[in-house]
């Protein structure tokens, strides 16, 4: 056989061999699919037999998925939890913006964690988490069950409706709502009282009074701007101190006359956008507002340029200030500054300003789907999660560490971190603040000790008075964040809403900046009506009935 023929034959044999190997690899069953945690326990040498008796606690592996701050693997908190619950904890996680990708990847590869945040990730909600039902929920997680019910009642939602949003396709509960109670509080406007005093003005209660303050401000400080807006990062929170005065939120669904309507096309919004446009012309708002980041807007306040800012919560305006509040940060750079709280100014008498609130139920927590085949493990993990919420010592451990070693109760009755457990890196080494991410509201005891009596009293005074929570019911975040589908099941966000939202933002920005006349708003309304507006309204109302009405 010639050399050339030999080479040809050898190449052909190698080619066939390689193809066979590739096909064999593709066809092989995956024996190491990670859905079976007992296999993983095998590889680490731990005992894998799971006793059915609830009283026997064999050491088992727990794959715990957290977000944002992925800690070091062997921190003190992890070690203490492992010892207490007889777990071998493997920490997993991803940065916030990669959580969806990571969880989808783990779902597809059969490597789902045992405890994980679900976060409205559709695939994970549908097929990634175990269904356990209300009976198991009441039995293994009584603390969390009772808490979620109390929060629901507090915000006027039927408890069964809340739990209905945490079920699988058969209606069996498979998730725990995560909560953010402070997000439901109406937002105050913080004013620079010292600047108001220089101008001879009081804290404005109406839009006209606000305009008068700004006019006086420009006469006194012509090179600065009294109000800033982070148009680049947060268009929908821009100038909320002014926008909300009309009683409607132009960036979300609202309830008006017992119907859900799209705030962006309401006539009230046209009026208030016109006011902002006039203020840009008058020089009260920087013409670069649309390119400003949220950080730049906050820095305008911190550096003493802005005379007012919309803030998340009622906070102290007298020292000692709440650490890292808007007042605190501004006071650091402006030691002579004084402050006052105010409500969103009123545009028309008799019209309550809108008050923005986050969805109280911000996401959900779940347990890996594979645990349906391992009821004993599911039980232990559910009890573990409930204990992190309900047990005072454990709750404080995961949030603050060990009392008098990592945190203490200060003279003001508030939670205070101690040296060695206060910076982000120190907390990460200790694993403090990691496990609380899969606990509703970070847990009962931590919440209670986070706020001093002084702050609690102040907030009660405002939230039952000038910043009544009644106003906040106007904003329907669950509808905003929910999926809108038409009667054919088509996703209206894909069909219409995304395009409309983009147009809404463009129209808002162009009118306020002065690029387009105010009448451009009417074109937006026309666009909405001609492009699925009726379908979106119907879907939003249907979703509202589902979420809020039994």
């Amino acid at each position: 056989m010639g050399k050339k023929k030999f080479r040809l034959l050898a190449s052909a044999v190698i080619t066939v061999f390689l193809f066979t190997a590739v096909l064999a690899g593709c066809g092989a069953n995956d024996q190491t699919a990670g859905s079976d945690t007992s296999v993983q326990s095998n590889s680490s040498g731990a005992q894998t037999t799971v006793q059915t008796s609830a009283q026997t606690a064999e050491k088992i592996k727990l794959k715990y998925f957290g977000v944002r701050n992925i800690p070091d693997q062997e921190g003190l908190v992890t070690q203490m939890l492992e010892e207490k619950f007889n777990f071998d904890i493997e920490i997993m996680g991803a940065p916030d913006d990669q959580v969806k990708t990571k969880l989808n990847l783990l779902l597809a590869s059969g490597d789902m964690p045992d405890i994980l945040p679900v976060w409205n990730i559709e695939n994970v909600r549908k097929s990634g988490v175990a269904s356990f039902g209300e009976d198991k929920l009441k039995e293994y997680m009584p603390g969390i069950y009772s808490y979620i019910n109390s929060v629901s009642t507090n915000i006027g939602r039927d408890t069964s409706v809340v739990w209905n949003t945490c079920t699988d396709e058969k209606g069996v509960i498979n998730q725990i709502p995560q909560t953010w109670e402070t997000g439901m509080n109406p937002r105050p406007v913080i004013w620079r009282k010292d600047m108001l005093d220089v101008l001879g003005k009081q804290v404005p209660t109406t839009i006209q009074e606000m305009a008068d303050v700004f006019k006086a401000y420009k006469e006194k400080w012509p090179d600065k701007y009294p109000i800033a807006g982070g148009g680049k990062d947060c268009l929908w929170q821009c100038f909320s101190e002014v926008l909300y005065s009309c009683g409607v939120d132009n960036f979300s669904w609202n309830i008006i006359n017992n119907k859900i309507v799209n705030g962006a096309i309401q006539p009230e919004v046209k009026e208030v956008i016109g006011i902002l446009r006039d203020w840009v012309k008058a020089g009260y708002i920087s013409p670069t507002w649309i390119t400003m980041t949220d950080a730049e807007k906050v820095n305008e306040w911190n550096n003493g340029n802005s005379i007012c800012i919309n803030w998340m919560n009622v906070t102290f305006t007298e020292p000692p200030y709440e650490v890292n509040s808007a007042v605190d940060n501004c006071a650091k750079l402006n030691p002579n500054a004084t402050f006052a709280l105010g409500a969103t100014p009123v545009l028309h008498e008799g019209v309550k300003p809108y008050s923005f609130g986050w969805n109280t139920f911000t996401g959900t927590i779940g347990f890996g789907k594979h645990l349906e085949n391992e009821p004993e493990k599911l039980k232990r993990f559910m009890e573990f999660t409930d204990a992190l919420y309900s047990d005072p010592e454990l709750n404080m451990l995961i949030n603050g560490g060990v009392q008098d070693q990592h945190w203490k109760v200060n003279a003001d009755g508030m939670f205070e971190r101690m040296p060695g457990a206060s910076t982000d890196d120190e907390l990460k080494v200790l694993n403090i603040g990691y496990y609380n991410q899969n606990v509703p509201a970070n847990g009962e005891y931590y919440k209670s000790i986070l706020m001093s009596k002084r702050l609690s009293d102040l907030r009660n005074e405002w939230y039952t008075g000038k910043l009544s929570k009644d106003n906040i019911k106007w904003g329907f975040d669950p509808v905003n964040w929910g999926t809108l589908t038409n009667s054919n099941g088509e996703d209206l966000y894909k069909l219409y809403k995304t395009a409309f939202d983009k147009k809404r933002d463009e129209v808002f920005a162009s009118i306020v900046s002065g690029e387009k006349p105010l009448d451009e708003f009417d074109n937006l309304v026309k666009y909405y009506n001609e492009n699925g507006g009726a379908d979106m309204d119907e879907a939003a109302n249907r979703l509202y009935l589902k979420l809020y009405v039994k």
Partner: protein
Amino acid sequence: MIKKRSAGERIFDFGNIIFMGLFCISIIFPFWQQMIMSISTPEEAMKNSLHLYTTNINLKSYLRIFQTGQIAKAYFWTILRSIIGTFITLITSLMLAYPLSKKYLPLRNFWTGLLVFTMFFGGGLIPSYLLIRNLQMIDTIWALVLPGALGAFNVIIIRNFFMSLPVSMEESARIDGAGEFRILLQIIMPLSLPVMATVGLWSIVGHWNSWFDAIIYITSNKITVIQLVLRKVLLENQMGFSGINSLMLDMQDEQAREFTPESVKAAILMISTLPILCIYPFLQKYFVKGIMIGSLKG
């Protein structure tokens, strides 16, 4: 005799210098601006204006970044993966490119076509993850260096370079009794420094800038890469200033005054690009030659 330059040539040179000068400024200026912002005081950094110089140098942004606990570990792993990954890339690319450059290789067109096919089609993220997991490379440095070790584009560049080398050199070596490996190592490789420098530089830059593979394949905190840490610092600082509450983000009071998200962003840019910029001058002479030579057809 020195030829006198005509008026037209002088005008052209003048215009050329102006144009190229402006062009260079347009490239250098953004980098200069970020460098100045990174060492500016918070008040200067927040101004919406040109940042040509600073009167008060403030290095707190760099301090904030380097105080991040994982920065040293991130640098270590990133440098390690860059070195190992580049070495493996060069070795494997050379070893594949060399036989493909031989016209007498049986089924040469088939192998080349198979290689080119991988440039357009891939298995996707999930199959890649499953493969890495089944090979038990999760949470190891091999998950960061092996998946992208052999790039079709690199192989083609090197192959074309090999094809441009005179065949007579190999023939004379063969006559002297050299085998294929000896020819590759002692004759071809020393002549291939330009293309190796080019491919090596691309590989180093690719490893230096990678972060997504670390998120996917590394689940624990034992291994981390610099871009991931810098990204986290950037996001943390933006969140801290916008008032979005995170109970983990307890900044020391004095820190809140000494830097801003903008200056931290600029400092991150400096930290992530300067090390690579320091390598470029050493490879410059190979880079220009290598990138063009690889484009020649054999």
